[in-house]
């Protein structure tokens, strides 16, 4: 039982922090958002730091780092509201592709590590909400047809990892396989848009599109669930960074802004609310650690832990975002002010990978007689 960071991990944190401070200041982020929410130079910069290689096995030119390093990185990216989909391209994609046939691994993992290839998961569908097993996209003879929504950077990604159904009804737990599809393949159409947090996503349409099998229906859903859990853990860390900075902005504001002749940070009602925000932040950080440290466990333990984490994080994101916004008064709800973008990021994140209500249902369904971290 040990929650200290190693010196290497601290150095990694410092490096990412420096990059974010220098190359992702708020004004720069505004430009990137206006230009569509994805910037290739930023991606190259992240790759230059070695972040795209982080989770790629050393055998394929990566750094073979673990979940704790990923957590450190995501916290810092969160602090800077970095929109480029690093968790997708550098954590989820390598984790899934490491389970692919050797030739696929050899073809893609080195390019992911080097930052040349951006591969993202394309799993959301119009009717699926947060149900991973709800898959209407069909695979027939290795060719896919269907529509995936909200695919991160979907119109600039080089390839997609696509859950598609080889058998069964749209909501059957069985019959889901994972495929790799190149964006340049026949029958792929994309249409980009921004999300409310400024990040870039796309509808991706497959029309009898040729695809390579990553994992058959015997383990497709299990891998998809693993991907979602990696996503939740990464997002938890990211959210901690977002919330920590949102609180810091708020503290600055409360100690600066004067009303009725005094700094509003002297009003006890706001002081107590600040304490409550700090509480949510520290609970969230605790659960971010928990999510990360449970990622390698057996699926039943892992899934329960990750849902517990998302419930706590979801509550924290909503409370911290709303209260930090409220404590700013009018300025907090303007586009011009950085704080509102932290709030929007938290708002969007709560609805990614399942909202608090969804995961409360998961926790409820997976509850044991015992309780606690080692239940």
């Amino acid at each position, binding site marked *: 039982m040990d929650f200290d960071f190693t010196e290497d991990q601290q150095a990694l944190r410092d490096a990412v922090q420096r990059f974010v401070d220098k190359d992702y200041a708020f004004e720069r982020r505004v430009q990137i958002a206006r230009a569509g929410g994805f910037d290739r130079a930023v991606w190259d910069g992240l790759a230059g730091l070695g972040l795209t290689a982080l989770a790629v096995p050393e055998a394929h030119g990566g750094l073979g780092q673990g979940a704790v390093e990923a957590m450190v990185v995501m916290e810092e990216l969160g602090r800077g509201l970095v929109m480029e989909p690093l968790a997708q391209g550098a954590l989820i994609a390598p984790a899934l592709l490491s389970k692919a046939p050797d030739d696929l691994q050899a073809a893609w993992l080195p390019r992911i590590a080097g930052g040349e290839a951006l591969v993202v998961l394309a799993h959301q569908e119009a009717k699926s909400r947060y149900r991973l097993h709800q898959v209407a996209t069909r695979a027939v003879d290795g060719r896919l047809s269907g529509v995936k929504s909200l695919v991160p950077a979907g119109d600039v990604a080089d390839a997609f990892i696509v859950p598609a159904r080889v058998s069964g009804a749209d909501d059957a737990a069985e019959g889901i396989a994972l495929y790799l599809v190149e964006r340049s393949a026949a029958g792929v159409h994309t249409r980009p848009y921004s999300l409310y947090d400024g990040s870039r996503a796309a509808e991706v349409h497959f029309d009898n599109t040729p695809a390579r099998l990553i994992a058959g229906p015997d383990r497709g859903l299990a891998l998809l669930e693993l991907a979602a859990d990696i996503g939740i853990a990464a997002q938890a860390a990211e959210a901690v960074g977002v919330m920590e900075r949102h609180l810091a902005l708020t503290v600055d504001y409360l100690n600066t802004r004067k009303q009725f002749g005094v700094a509003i940070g002297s009003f006890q009602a706001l002081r107590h609310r600040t304490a409550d925000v700090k509480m949510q932040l520290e609970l969230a950080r605790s659960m971010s650690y928990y999510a990360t440290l449970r990622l390698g466990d057996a699926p039943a333990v892992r899934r329960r832990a990750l849902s517990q984490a998302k419930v706590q994080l979801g509550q924290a994101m909503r409370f911290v975002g709303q209260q930090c916004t409220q404590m700013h008064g*009018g300025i907090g*709800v303007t586009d011009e002010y950085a704080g509102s973008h932290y709030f*929007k990021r938290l708002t969007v994140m709560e609805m990614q990978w399942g909202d608090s209500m969804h995961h409360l*249902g998961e926790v409820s369904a997976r509850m044991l007689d015992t309780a606690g971290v080692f239940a």
Partner: protein
Amino acid sequence: MDLNFTDAELAFRAEVREWVRANLPADIAHKVRNALRLNKDDLQRWARILGAKGWHGWAWPKQFGGPGWNAVQRHLFEEECALACAPRVVPFGPVMVAPVIMAFGSPEQQQRFLPGIMSGEVWWSQGYSEPGSGSDLASVKCRAERKGDKYIVNGQKTWTTLGQYGDWIFCLVRTSTEGKPQTGISFLLIDMKTAGVTVKPIIMLDGEHEVNEVWFDNVEVPAENLIGEENKGWTYAKHLLSHERTNIADVNRAKRELERLKRIAKAEGLIDDARFRDQIALCEVDVVALEMMVLRVLSGERSGKQPLDVAGLLKIRGSELQQRYTELMMLAGGPLALPHVHEAMEAGWQGDQWLGGAWIGGATHAIPLTGNYLNVRKTTIYGGSNEVQRNIVAQTVLG
């Protein structure tokens, strides 16, 4: 005690309902029902329709050309408009400045300004807040210096809602720096087309242009545009603020929006999800309780027997309830509510640039949900933040 409306009240309601349904343009109602973007034309068309009927100033007494309704009738009118999906009347003219002109304006000012407000022709804006003033409205810095028969106005107002469409603006201006901050404030009406008036947009977190900064650079205002006496503006402003809060609970809108929430939950297959349905049920209870509190206030106002001083409670509860049901709508929309497509907020948007329909999965109900959620964060901040309201309520309870 009687929960039911009288026959006369029911007849009144039926008359209003019939008229609103016959006269509210369907395209405008469609936008309100689906929380799409309303433009100046939408708002002004409806204002003129009301004006032609003599109902744009529905709370006005007969002597100024209003219908002379009592508190219950006014509530019924507001409810019928809300449930029929009429836009909220832009309040700055008929609800905010008009009562001040009626109470404190000269007969000439009343004749000059009130008809244009009632008819919906003249668009008024509010010039109260200033940068840094927040809930401390008396800290007015915008100066007006008397020079002959004119005031020369310099300074800035902010958070001026829909000021980009304004013809006139009523302002609190500082005419004296002596004594307490409240004692040197005057109430001035300013033609926004005067040289030196500049309106600059403030874009809100939902990406919409709803509020503005208004700058005054040596703006010349005829002294006849001063309401009442110089340096007495704070008195008039307080009168206005008391009017501003009458309908602050906005419970009629809550009733309409709760219906919308249920429609969305149905469309998303959530209405039979026990967990989500419970949250709607809690809102349902909150709406009934708030409506009962509003009805108690109306009853007390009408009879004069048990006046209830609960404006602060209504503001707090109404705004928090609005935020909650808007949040639930967004959560119901789920992932489909996340894309931000500015033009999709326009009615009739066909989404032709999208693959496969006007919105992901054809779920057009999801289009405005996150934007709506972000937008209403302001409601616990403006009009005296909920923190200030709690101070006021505590004062009445604790002294």
